[in-house]
């Protein structure tokens, strides 16, 4: 027998899964630390690529002067400077992405609470339908 109430509930849940809940359901399948760790790792990779690109542009910008001065400059100091700037950039970016993704995770979990409640309700409906 078709149960109208059950179909309405299932339709609402399917609609949530297909639209606004799509991302939340995906996020909800991770543990908090796994999700945030993975996203921060991706951010660190992005920031590293961005830093390399900017650094390359910086070198190309004054390439001739750089090539002339490379023999005079303290290369160790230069490398230290670059490394320090790299760590600073990546650190700040990783911190920002940690905050953003922590917020997104808790928001997704909050949004999924109603979905899980409906899931329980649906399971209850099936149980009472069979007994």
């Amino acid at each position, binding site marked *: 027998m*078709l149960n109208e109430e059950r179909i309405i509930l299932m339709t609402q849940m399917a*609609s949530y899964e297909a639209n606004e809940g799509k991302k939340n359901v995906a996020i909800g399948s991770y543990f908090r630390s796994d999700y945030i760790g993975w996203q921060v790792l991706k951010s660190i990779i*992005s920031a590293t690529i961005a830093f390399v690109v900017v650094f390359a542009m910086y070198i190309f910008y*004054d390439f001739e002067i750089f090539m002339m001065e490379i023999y005079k400059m303290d290369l160790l100091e230069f490398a230290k400077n670059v490394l320090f700037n790299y760590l600073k950039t990546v650190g700040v970016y990783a911190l920002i992405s940690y905050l953003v993704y922590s917020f997104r995770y808790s928001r997704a979990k909050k949004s999924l609470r109603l979905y899980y409640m409906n899931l329980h309700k649906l399971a209850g409906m099936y149980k009472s339908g069979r007994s």
Partner: protein
Amino acid sequence: MTTLLVAKQILMAIYSKYEVYITPLLKFLLALVTLLMINSRLGYMENIDKLTVVLIVALMCSFMPMNFIVVAAAAFTMLHLYKFNLETALVIGVGFLLMFLLYIRFSPKDTVVIVLLPVCFLMKIPYVIPISMGLVGTPASAVSVACGVMVYYMLHYVIQNATVIAAMADEETAAKLKFLIDGLLSNKEMVITIAAFAVTVILVYIIRRLSIDYAWTIAMAAGAVVNIMVLLVGDLMFDTNVALFGVILGTIISFLLVLVLQFFVFNVDYSRTEKVQFEDDEYYYYVKAVPKVTVARAEKKVKQINTQRNARPVQRTRSTHES
């Protein structure tokens, strides 16, 4: 006002009924306008500067996700710039790459602003975007708006200096790079516009969330005023020669446009007809959920102007005459 409300209801009804066609059509139009504008301003590569190519790509955009328009626009821009000059393509490409790596992967929802803003700049109404993003977005939208402004000014700089760049000899790679990077980084007008738009987005967002009457309208008006103020103060401080009349007129037109948008788009829940599929142990369900939309049309009052021909009143009149 009642007529407007009825119009809104009718629009909602039409949208929920024909959403399948209306959304792709809007995407198609946005992609078409964007690509035509890119071709008209940058048309260096003849192979893609053709209406047929633009139509095909716009048609593809209509059934792809919204962000595909951004990808298509970026690809068209890069191809034109590559044909124009390799160094220019390199610098602009690095700009795009940095935006993608550092920001766009964070908030893919706002990405379309990066395309919309340059289009609005060319229509002389860029102020629509910061006010709108303040109304529908979050304070983080200020970064999307800033990216859009950067894209516009980067391309604007290239278009303005196209003859200078083209005149430089092929061997002068380092000089070209320096010229481009210097020009892009020392663009004070861009910095002031970014500051003005960022302040506008954040201010509009803060005011529209206040629990006061007409919060949205006050937010829009305050955003428009602050936008003009910051642009003018920036102009006085850095002497950027901002066209005062243009800014004020553009802001007023933008304010009116946002007012219309707010009434018909932002505050309305265009709930769509949805088709979902699911199954349980007994059945497969293919459900089409249609939102209930009631169109409240204006009440029709029937005013009777002919004399009533009932028996009783006539008799009463007679009796008064008789008495």
